[in-house]
């Protein structure tokens, strides 16, 4: 059996999913965190059920690729029951999607989530009454605390067994007439969802379905146009609007019958935006919050990096002394130790506080506020505020950043935000910035690199915009309410991302370090170094950085850890001047995104975009690093 979770953005589908699946799906308090579907197996009444979490969507008429996934999934895969999750505090909007889902001809359960939030706002809902009005089961839930989940699944299992198909609500007479007339055209064919649903989508002008149906029945286009003309003539409004208005009218009527509002007092939470979105103080708070974030990550990381590095350097010396320093085995073991210490002493101390902090800002609902305040700035680089989402996710890892570009409607916006967000220093590059520059040169130099990075990204965006002019309409975004995240979701989310480093990246780091040690032993690295010699000469870097830079394409942390291997020490101060460290780090921050990112660019935007973005980053990295070097020479 297969159940699908469907609901509008930010209604808590993924939170519910994670409650039953362990932490498998990314969650966040802003619209569009889930861009593709995640599946898991759960046990319901002794049965194994396949549960799928689909991206949030306002209607089944997807206008961006993330929303498109929902309808495509429903059409492609046999779903035995749909669990429709809606936010109790936005009942009318939620019910409009429910009405649309009722047309599909699949068993349906309505889950009203965030009952605690509704209670806080003084909203009272009569679930039983709604159940009788809709004719489908209605279940209350507080997904963040796990309340009501078991009951909802049991109920869904029962209606899936009974194959209880909901009866769609009746629209106004003129729409129903068109629906009946068009339905006759589809009579002979076999469709995965009900014919009524398809006809309504055709009237709403869904381009993909129209194309598919007209291929089977060529003359259907004329018929659709005729019905659209009739509808437009009768009501002087477009059919899309007419149907949307009908759904809203029905939803509003039901909501009025089942809910009552009591007086409540405005709390600090309701007034928070007066401060955090204030035209002046809002930006002061923004700088303070991001500054504090940076400071905590730096402070925490430094506290751990120093003793850990000392310990591993000591260990490395012991090993080298014990096994004749220049022997093959000694070199290989030392390579492995440096790989382990790189992950434990340089990457994790910064990665853990960073990911916990980012998760907290996401869940509390602050990210969308940043998008709101930064929209006009983003326009200067040819994007709109929504592009802040891939940017901010990019600080964690570029791969989800690239995937999140799906929330943009426009193809050109997707390309540009993907190109620019690959230049955002991800957690791996954060390790290089902090482990090398902050540690040896000073925290201000590290902060300087971050600002310099933003400046270069803005200039690059500006230049690309000259060739690819901005033509998208701009920002359309729902502002989430502030929510206090639970410790459980924050830690689960951070662990979800840290786990990826520990099990996927770290082994590669260790292997890479060992491979480099072997290559060093047989003097192969000399040839690799020669390959990058032109860059090193241009940027004034020691020739040994060539091999680490090439390995850095696999994983960005490798460029730092291999550096230790290439020079045979983790005391970077002995081998590079502070200026060289800064130039090297700037180059590492910008040049070719890691392999995983390159692959996800190809998956999302195609091979052409992948090559274009990779080439672009090398050019930008060289220029950006050269500017820094010239700056040092002049001042």
């Amino acid at each position, binding site marked *: 059996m297969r159940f699908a979770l469907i609901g509008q953005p930010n209604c808590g589908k993924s939170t519910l999913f994670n409650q039953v699946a362990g932490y498998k799906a990314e969650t966040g308090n802003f619209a569009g965190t889930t861009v593709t579907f995640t599946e898991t197996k759960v046990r319901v009444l002794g049965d194994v059920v396949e549960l799928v979490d689909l991206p949030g969507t306002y209607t089944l008429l997807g206008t961006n690729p993330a929303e498109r996934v929902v309808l495509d999934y429903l059409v492609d895969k046999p779903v035995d029951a749909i669990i429709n999750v809606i936010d109790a505090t936005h009942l009318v909007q939620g019910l409009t999607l429910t009405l649309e889902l009722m047309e599909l001809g699949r068993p349906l359960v309505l889950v009203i989530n965030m009952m605690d939030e509704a209670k806080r706002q003084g909203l009272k809902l009569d679930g039983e009454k709604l159940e009788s009005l809709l004719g489908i089961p209605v279940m209350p839930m507080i997904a963040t605390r796990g309340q009501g989940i078991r009951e909802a699944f049991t109920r869904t299992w029962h209606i899936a067994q009974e194959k209880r198909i909901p009866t769609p609500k009746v629209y106004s007479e003129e729409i129903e007439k068109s629906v009946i007339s068009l339905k006759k055209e589809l009579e002979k064919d076999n469709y995965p969802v009900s014919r009524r649903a398809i006809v309504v989508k055709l009237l709403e002008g869904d381009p993909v379905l129209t194309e598919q149906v007209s291929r089977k029945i060529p003359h259907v286009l004329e018929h659709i146009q005729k019905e659209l003309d009739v509808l437009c003539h009768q009501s002087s409004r477009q059919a899309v609007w007419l149907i*949307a208005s009908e759904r*809203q009218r029905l939803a509003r009527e039901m909501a009025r019958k089942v809910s009552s509002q009591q007086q409540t007092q405005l709390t600090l939470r309701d007034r928070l935006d007066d401060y955090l*979105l204030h035209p002046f103080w809002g930006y002061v708070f923004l700088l303070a919050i991001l500054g504090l974030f940076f400071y905590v990550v730096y402070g925490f990381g430094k506290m751990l990096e120093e003793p850990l590095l000392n310990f591993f350097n000591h260990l490395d010396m012991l090993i080298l002394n014990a096994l004749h320093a220049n022997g093959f085995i000694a070199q290989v073991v030392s390579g492995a130790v440096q790989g382990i210490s790189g992950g434990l002493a340089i990457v994790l101390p910064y990665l853990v506080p960073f990911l916990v902090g980012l998760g907290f800002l996401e869940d509390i609902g602050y990210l969308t506020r940043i998008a*709101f305040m930064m*929209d006009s700035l983003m326009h200067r680089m040819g994007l709109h*505020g929504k592009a802040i989402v891939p940017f901010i996710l990019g600080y964690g890892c570029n791969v989800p950043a690239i995937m999140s570009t799906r929330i943009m*409607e426009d193809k050109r916006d997707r390309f540009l935000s993907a190109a620019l967000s690959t230049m955002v220093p991800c957690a791996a590059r954060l390790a290089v910035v902090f482990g090398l520059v902050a540690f040896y040169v000073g925290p201000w130099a590290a902060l300087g690199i971050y600002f310099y990075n933003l400046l270069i990204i803005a200039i690059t965006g500006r230049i690309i915009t000259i060739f690819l002019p901005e033509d998208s309409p701009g*920002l359309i975004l729902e502002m989430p309410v502030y929510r206090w995240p639970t410790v459980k979701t924050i830690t689960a989310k951070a662990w979800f991302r840290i786990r990826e480093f520990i099990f996927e990246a770290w082994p590669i780091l260790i292997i890479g370090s060992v491979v480099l040690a072997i290559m060093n032993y047989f003097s192969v690295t000399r040839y690799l170094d020669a390959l990058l010699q032109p860059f090193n000469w241009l940027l004034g870097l020691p020739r040994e950085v060539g091999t680490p830079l090439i390995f850095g394409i696999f994983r960005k942390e490798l460029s730092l850890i291999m550096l230790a291997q290439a020079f045979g020490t983790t005391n970077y101060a002995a081998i590079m001047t502070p200026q060289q460290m800064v130039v090297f780090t700037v180059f590492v921050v910008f040049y070719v995104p890691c392999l995983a990112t390159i692959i996800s660019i190809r998956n999302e935007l195609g091979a052409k975009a992948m090559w274009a973005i990779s080439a672009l980053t090398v050019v930008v990295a060289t220029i950006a690093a050269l500017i820094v070097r010239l700056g040092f020479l002049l001042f």
Partner: protein
Amino acid sequence: MVNLLQVKNGYWVKVVNVAGGVGMERRLAQLGFLPGNKIRVIRSAPFHGPLLLDVEGREIVLGRGVARSVMVEYL
């Protein structure tokens, strides 16, 4: 009839229609920009930033380009 950009902060207006192509109409219809629905401009971001609107109890952010295409009238 004015567009949303011309509405001052704190005022309530009623949607008349959305000009700007089928895609835009559909997207905005999903978010509650339907003829007759009430909207309040809560605040606008500085430096010609986007508008924060109350649309039927939900807070929606619209960039200025989009807001210009929403035609409304004062209540």
